[in-house]
C-alpha cells in the first residue's frame, strides 16, 4: 500500500529524527533571535500605534495579499513568476508540516491521500522551477530598471532553487531504488529517476547519494531559516506582517492628524523615533520590487523622489541608527546622529511628491508611503524649509483664503455673467451646496467652464447655491503639504459658514475639495458628490436629458482624488456614453491612471529641472490612441495642466482637452 516512510534510506541508528529536529530547532532559535534583534527595533525605537483591531479584516487581508498575492498578479510576467515561487514554497511548507503530523501524530499519508499529496507536491515543484527560470531570466536578461540587481538577491534565488532541486533529486533517487508501482504519482521525480536507472549505478550508491543529498537539503533549509532576517528573504516575514498591520481605520482619502504626546504638544517627525513602529516596519517590509517607482509621476519626471528609495532610506536609517537609539535615546551618541528629515531624506525628495497614491495602490506588501511623506513634510513646514513660491502660496492662503493672493471679494466674480443670479446659500436654504473651489473661481480661463457648469445645473432644474465670498480653499492640498495649522484655519472658516447654511448635499467640480469635504470635514453624514456623480444621477433619472449624440471619439483621464482615492470610475463613463461619445480607455486607466503632477501642493511649488513633465507624458500616452482627439478631464487643475501640456508638446492640432461638462453641454 502506498504510504509515506519516515527518513527512508537513512540509517535509523544515526537518529535522523534527532538530527532534523535539533538542527531545525537551532535554526529556529537563531531565526527568532535575529528576528527579535531586527524586529524589536520597530517598537523599541518607534512610537506606539494601535494596529491590531478588527482582527478578522486583517486576516482577510493576509489571505488576499500575502497568500493569494493579488497585487503581484497585476503584472503578468513577474506575477506568475512570484506566484510560482511563493505558492511553491507554501506547498512545500504545508507538505513538511503534514509530514510532521504524519510522523508523530496521526498517520494519514497512506493510500489515496498519500498519492494526491505526492502528486500535488510534484506539481508545485514544477510551478516553482518554472518561476525560478522566469526569475533568472528576469534578473539576468531582462534586467528591468525598477529592480535592485544585486548579488544578495541572486544568492536568495540560488539558495531556494538549489533546495528545491535537491529535494526533487532526493525524491528521484528514492524512486530509482524503490521503484514503487505508484511511482507515476510523482511524475517529475519518476522522470528524473529514469536517468538514475538508466545510468546503471548500483542501488547502494544511489542510496548513499540519497543520504548525502538529503543531508545537504536539510542543511540548506536550516541555513535559509537561520539567515532569513539577514537575507532578501526577510520580506517573507515582514511582508505578511506589514499586510496584517496595514491601515484600516480611515478611508484612504483621510490623512491621520498630527500625533500628540502626553502633554498635548504636537509630535513632528524629525527622526526615526518620531515615526511609529508601523512606519518603521514599512521600511523593513520593502521587497525592493520597485513597482511603486514605476508608477510614480515624480520619479518619471526625473525629480529626486523615488518612493522605493524613500522607503529604503527609512530602512537604512533604521538598521544603522536604530540600535543606538534603542540602547539609549538620550545618549550623546544618539545626539550626534544625522537628522532623518532634511539631512538623511532631503527636502527635495519630500517636496517632489504629488500625493497621487499610485505607489500605495501598487505596493504588494501594502506600504503606506504617502502617510510618511506627509508626516515628514509637517516637520519641514515647522522648520520653514520650503521654496519661496510655496511660502507665498501658503501666506496667501492664510491671508486671503486662496493661493492666488486675490481678495476674497473677487471669488464670485465669475458669477457676474450668470443669469439668473445664483442663490446665496448663506442667505437662503438650498438643496445642493456647490463648493466651487479656488481654481474654478479665480482662474480667468477656467471661469468659462464654471459658468457652463452653472448653465447645465440650471437646465437640469437643480436647486443649488454657492457660498460666494464666504468660501475658502477647502484645504485638501494644504494638508498634504503638511500645514495642519493652516488647514485647521481654513476648515474652521468654511465650517462656520457652512453651519449657518441649510442644504441637503454638497457638490463640487474639484476632486481635491471633494476628497477633503467627504473624508476630512466631519459633516455628519451629509452626502458629498462630485459633479460627475450628480450628473450621472440626473441623466439616469431623466432630470437632465441628453438628446443629441455627440459622436465624439474620446479618452478619459481619471483624476487621482476622484478615482484612485475615492473609487468613482463609472459615473464619468456613464456620462460619456449618455452623451453619445465612444470612449477609448487610456492605457493607464482607472486606479492606474497617471497623475498630472499638480497634486500635493506641487502646483504651488517651483518646478525645478524635470526630464519630462507628468502632464506631457500623459498627453503623449493619449496621442498613441488612434483617432482620439478629445482628452476629457473632470478636474479644474487637470484642465489647466493638460491644456498647458498640449501647448508645450506642440499638439494643438492633434488633441484638445475638454472638461466633461463641455460634452454634457454639447449633448443637451
Amino acid at each position, binding site marked *: 500500500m502506498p504510504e509515506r516512510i519516515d527518513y527512508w534510506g537513512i540509517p535509523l541508528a544515526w537518529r535522523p529524527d534527532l538530527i532534523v529536529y535539533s538542527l531545525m530547532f537551532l535554526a529556529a532559535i537563531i531565526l527568532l533571535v535575529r528576528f527579535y534583534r531586527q524586529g524589536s527595533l520597530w517598537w523599541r525605537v518607534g512610537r506606539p500605534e494601535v494596529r491590531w483591531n478588527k482582527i478578522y479584516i486583517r486576516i482577510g487581508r493576509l489571505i488576499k495579499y500575502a497568500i493569494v498575492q493579488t497585487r503581484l498578479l497585476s503584472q503578468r510576467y513577474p506575477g506568475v513568476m512570484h506566484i510560482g515561487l511563493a505558492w511553491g514554497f507554501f506547498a512545500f511548507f504545508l507538505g513538511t508540516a503534514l509530514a510532521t503530523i504524519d510522523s508523530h501524530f496521526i498517520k494519514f499519508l497512506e493510500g489515496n491521500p498519500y498519492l494526491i499529496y505526492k502528486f500535488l507536491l510534484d506539481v508545485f515543484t514544477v510551478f516553482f522551477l518554472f518561476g525560478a527560470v522566469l526569475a533568472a531570466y528576469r534578473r539576468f536578461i531582462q534586467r528591468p530598471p525598477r529592480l535592485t540587481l544585486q548579488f544578495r538577491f541572486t544568492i536568495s534565488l540560488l539558495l531556494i532553487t538549489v533546495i528545491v532541486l535537491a529535494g526533487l533529486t532526493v525524491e528521484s533517487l528514492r524512486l530509482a531504488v524503490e521503484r514503487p508501482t505508484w511511482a507515476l504519482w510523482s511524475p517529475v521525480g519518476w522522470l528524473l529517476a529514469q536517468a538514475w536507472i538508466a545510468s546503471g549505478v548500483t542501488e547502494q550508491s544511489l542510496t548513499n547519494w540519497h543520504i548525502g543529498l538529503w543531508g545537504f537539503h536539510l542543511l540548506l533549509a536550516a541555513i535559509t531559516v537561520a539567515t532569513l532576517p539577514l537575507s532578501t528573504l526577510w520580506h517573507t516575514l515582514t511582508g505578511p506582517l506589514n499586510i496584517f498591520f496595514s491601515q484600516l481605520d480611515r478611508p484612504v482619502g483621510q490623512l491621520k492628524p*498630527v500625533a500628540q504626546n502626553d502633554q498635548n*504638544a*504636537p509630535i513632528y517627525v524629525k527622526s526615526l523615533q518620531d515615526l511609529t513602529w508601523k512606519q518603521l516596519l514599512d521600511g523593513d517590509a520593502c521587497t525592493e520590487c520597485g513597482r511603486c517607482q514605476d508608477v510614480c509621476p515624480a520619479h518619471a519626471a526625473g525629480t529626486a523622489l523615488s518612493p522605493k528609495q524613500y522607503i529604503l532610506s527609512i530602512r537604512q536609517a533604521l538598521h544603522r541608527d536604530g540600535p543606538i537609539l534603542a540602547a539609549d535615546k538620550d545618549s550623546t551618541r544618539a545626539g550626534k546622529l544625522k537628522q532623518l528629515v532634511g539631512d538623511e531624506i532631503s527636502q527635495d525628495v519630500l517636496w517632489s511628491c504629488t500625493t497621487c497614491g499610485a505607489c500605495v495602490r501598487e505596493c504588494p506588501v501594502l506600504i503606506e508611503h504617502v502617510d510618511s511623506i506627509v508626516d515628514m513634510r509637517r516637520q519641514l*513646514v*515647522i522648520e*520653514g524649509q*520650503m521654496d*519661496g513660491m*510655496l*511660502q507665498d502660496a*501658503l*501666506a496667501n492662503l*492664510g*491671508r*486671503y483664503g486662496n493661493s492666488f*493672493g*486675490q*481678495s476674497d*471679494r473677487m471669488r464670485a466674480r465669475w458669477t457676474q455673467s450668470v443669469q439668473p443670479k445664483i442663490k446665496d446659500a448663506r442667505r437662503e436654504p438650498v438643496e445642493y451646496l456647490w463648493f466651487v473651489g479656488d481654481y474654478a473661481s479665480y482662474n480667468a480661463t477656467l471661469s468659462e467652464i464654471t459658468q457652463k457648469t452653472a448653465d447645465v445645473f440650471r437646465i437640469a432644474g437643480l436647486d443649488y447655491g454657492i457660498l460666494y465670498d464666504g468660501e475658502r480653499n477647502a484645504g485638501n492640498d494644504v494638508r498634504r503639504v503638511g*500645514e*495642519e*495649522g*493652516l488647514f*485647521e*484655519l481654513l476648515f474652521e472658516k468654511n465650517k462656520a459658514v457652512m453651519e449657518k447654511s441649510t442644504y441637503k448635499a454638497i457638490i463640487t467640480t474639484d476632486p481635491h475639495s471633494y476628497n477633503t469635504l467627504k473624508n476630512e470635514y466631519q459633516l455628519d453624514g451629509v452626502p458629498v458628490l462630485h459633479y460627475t456623480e450628480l450628473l450621472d444621477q440626473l441623466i439616469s433619472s431623466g432630470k437632465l436629458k441628453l438628446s443629441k449624440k455627440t459622436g465624439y471619439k474620446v479618452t478619459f483621464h481619471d483624476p487621482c482624488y476622484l478615482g484612485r482615492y475615492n473609487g468613482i470610475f463609472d459615473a464619468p463613463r456613464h456620462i460619456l456614453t449618455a452623451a453619445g461619445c465612444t470612449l477609448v480607455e487610456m492605457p493607464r486607466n482607472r486606479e492606474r491612471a497617471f497623475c498630472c503632477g499638480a497634486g500635493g501642493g506641487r502646483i504651488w511649488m517651483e518646478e525645478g529641472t524635470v526630464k519630462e513633465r507628468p502632464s506631457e507624458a500623459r498627453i503623449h500616452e493619449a496621442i498613441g490612441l488612434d483617432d482620439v482627439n478629445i482628452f476629457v478631464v473632470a478636474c479644474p487643475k487637470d484642465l489647466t495642466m493638460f491644456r498647458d501640456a498640449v501647448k508645450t508638446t506642440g499638439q494643438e492640432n492633434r488633441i484638445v482637452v475638454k472638461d466633461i461638462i463641455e460634452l454634457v453641454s454639447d449633448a443637451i
Partner: protein
Amino acid sequence: MNIIVPVKLVPDLVEELSIDASGTNLDTAWLRLIINEFDDHAIEQSILLKERTGAHVTVLSTNVEGVDDLLFTAAAKGADRLIKFNGDFDSGVNNHALARAMANILKDLNPDLILTGVQANNDLDGSIGPLLAEYLGMPYVGYVSGVNVLGNIVSVRKEYPGGLIGEMEVTLPAVLGIQAAEQPPRYVAISKVRQMMKTINIDEQDLTGLDTLGGPIVKRLFQPEASGRAMMLSENAEEAARQMVAIFKELGTL
C-alpha cells in the same frame, strides 16, 4: 544685545480702497490691515541677527485690530518679547506723537539696536524711525539692506540708486530703517503661531501723552484720476500678440 522692532499694520493694497463720508479718512468697511512690508523685513533682520549673535528681540506695536496675530507671528519666528501699546489710536495718531510717546517707554528698555521699516504706505508725516532716533538721541540710517554687528558698532549697507551700496558704520545704540532683510521674510507655520498664543504673553503698556501736535492737517483724501489710460489690446493672447507685432513694426523695433 537688545534689539527692539517697532512694527505697524497698514492698509492692504490688494483690496480696493475707498474714502469715508468725512472725506478725510479711509473707509474701514472693506479695509484689510496687514503688516507693513518693511516692518516684516525688520522683524526678519532682527531674527537673523538673533540667530547670529544670540540677541534678545522685542517686537512692539499699537493695539489695533489684528495686532495680536501680528505679534504672535513674530514670536513664532523667534521674537522673545511682545509688547502692545494701549491708547486712543482711532483718530489716527501721527508718527511724531507716537514716536514721542514711545520714546519714553523705549528708553527704559535699554535697546542697543532699533530696527523698523524704512517707511509705511500710510505715512503722511515722515517715517517713524528717524523721529524715534531723535527723541532717543540715537543716530539713524535708513534704506538699509544688510546689518552686521561688530562689537559696539554696526556696519550697514545703505541703498543708493542704480544698485549702488554705501557701507556705513554707526555707533550703538542706533536706529536703522530697514528696506530689505538679508533674506525674504520667512514663512512660519500657523500651528506654530497658534502654539505661541498658548505659551507666550503679550505685555501691555499704556501710551500716554499722545497728542496730534505738528501733524499734517488733511483737508481731504481723494482717489487720483488717471492722467491717461492705456489703449487696451485684445484679451485673447494670439490676437494681442498680433496687435503687438504690428505696434513693434510701427515703432521700428521690428
